[in-house]
């Protein structure tokens, strides 16, 4: 009789273990409960969410990423839109410009270029910046040919932009992969992106010197 009781007690404990295993798994899943519905939305032709074609994996080399980041840096460095809040955000220490620049470059940019951007923005000007030629390495520096188009006033449909071409030399640090640290502390890429951060700031890319 006693052995039978022991046997059933063992079975009971085993069942309890299985139940506990099931519930602990369910509790874990409840924390991250996601459903996948098997249908796909085609973004509308006019939608800003339309993504175009992804870059093929064989094209997605370090060179490709580096050039994209240099182009992004040039845009961040020069572009102007008529919203003064935009430049206020760009000069903050957590901005993408701050993330892509070394401390000296960011300080110089704030002191010189950002002031000019602010003045243009106040006057309701717009300026676009594009890289127009191949980016080539000369010694320690990357030579970048850029084109600035500046609209000196807004709401004038007769106005054509003033075009200015220039060359800028950038000394950059670039490594493969994404950052694990930023400003000395641990950097959580997923958290940063989920909070709407600019993806350009996650790469191990930094401009240490700018010569014009």
């Amino acid at each position: 009789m006693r052995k039978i009781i022991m046997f059933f007690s063992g079975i009971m404990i085993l069942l309890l273990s299985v139940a506990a295993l099931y519930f602990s798994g369910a509790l874990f899943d409840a924390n991250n409960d996601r459903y996948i519905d098997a249908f796909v939305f085609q973004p509308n032709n006019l939608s800003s969410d339309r993504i175009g074609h992804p870059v093929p994996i064989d094209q997605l080399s370090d060179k490709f990423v580096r050039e994209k980041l240099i182009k992004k840096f040039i845009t961040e460095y020069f572009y102007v839109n008529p919203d003064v809040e935009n430049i206020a955000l760009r000069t903050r220490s957590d901005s993408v410009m701050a993330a892509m620049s070394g401390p000296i470059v960011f300080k110089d940019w704030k002191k010189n270029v950002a002031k000019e951007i602010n003045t243009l923005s106040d006057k309701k000007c717009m300026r676009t910046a594009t890289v127009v030629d191949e980016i080539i390495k000369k010694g320690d520096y990357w030579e970048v040919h850029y084109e600035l188009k500046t609209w000196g006033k807004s709401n004038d449909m007769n106005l054509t932009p003033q075009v200015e071409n220039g060359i800028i030399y950038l000394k950059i640090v670039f490594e493969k992969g994404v950052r694990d640290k930023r400003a000395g502390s641990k950097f959580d890429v997923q958290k940063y992106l989920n909070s709407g951060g600019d993806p350009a700031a996650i790469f191990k890319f930094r401009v240490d010197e700018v010569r014009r």
Partner: protein
Amino acid sequence: MDYPGNFQTPADPAGKSIAVSRFMAICTFVAFFIIVFLCGILLWSARSERLEPFMISTNSENGEWKIVGKNPVSLEYPAQRTMQESVVGNFVKDWFKISKDNSENENAWKDCDRNVCISGDTLMFGERSCAIYCSVSEDLYSRFSYDILPDYKKRFQNGETWQIDEKSLSIMPAGKISDNGGTWQVNLNLVSNIAGRFNVKIFMKVARNKNFYPQTMGFYVADFNSYRID
């Protein structure tokens, strides 16, 4: 037991086996919780290494980079945001409209009484009476009437008409959009019967005042800057 006179309690012959079974029961109890805990850790470690790829969309025109597919922001669009997009979309249509019918133009561009806008007789569907005035701040209307209107009237006198190609209209935020407004970027193609079709980029600031603009939940256009791209 004669306590406290007699401490010599007789030993229980079954005491040892009871103690052993108690000890075993406690061990089983502890082992049970250790097993549950280890199962939890096992599940956690199995699930904690998850591949979360993200796709970056880059815009070569404005240098904007953003994550697509993963959707960092909520897919739910609150009414405030939808209304702002509606205000933006309707306003650019009115701003860039030069009709061949002069009375329609004058009606849309004229200076009105703010009470007329509040009363609800304007801004009905298809109704363009006071279309510009009722959608903007006093300051922007002043800029419109002094800087823009003379040019529009000159174009009308030259027989020019404007209308936007609605299929080309794209509206996107240019910064943070709150329940009280924000800056929007609009791209569109403008069709002129004289100059042809050209691309226009617009930055416009939407603000909110529930008292003066009740028909649009208080949203109005506080600043408008457009540029001809090509």
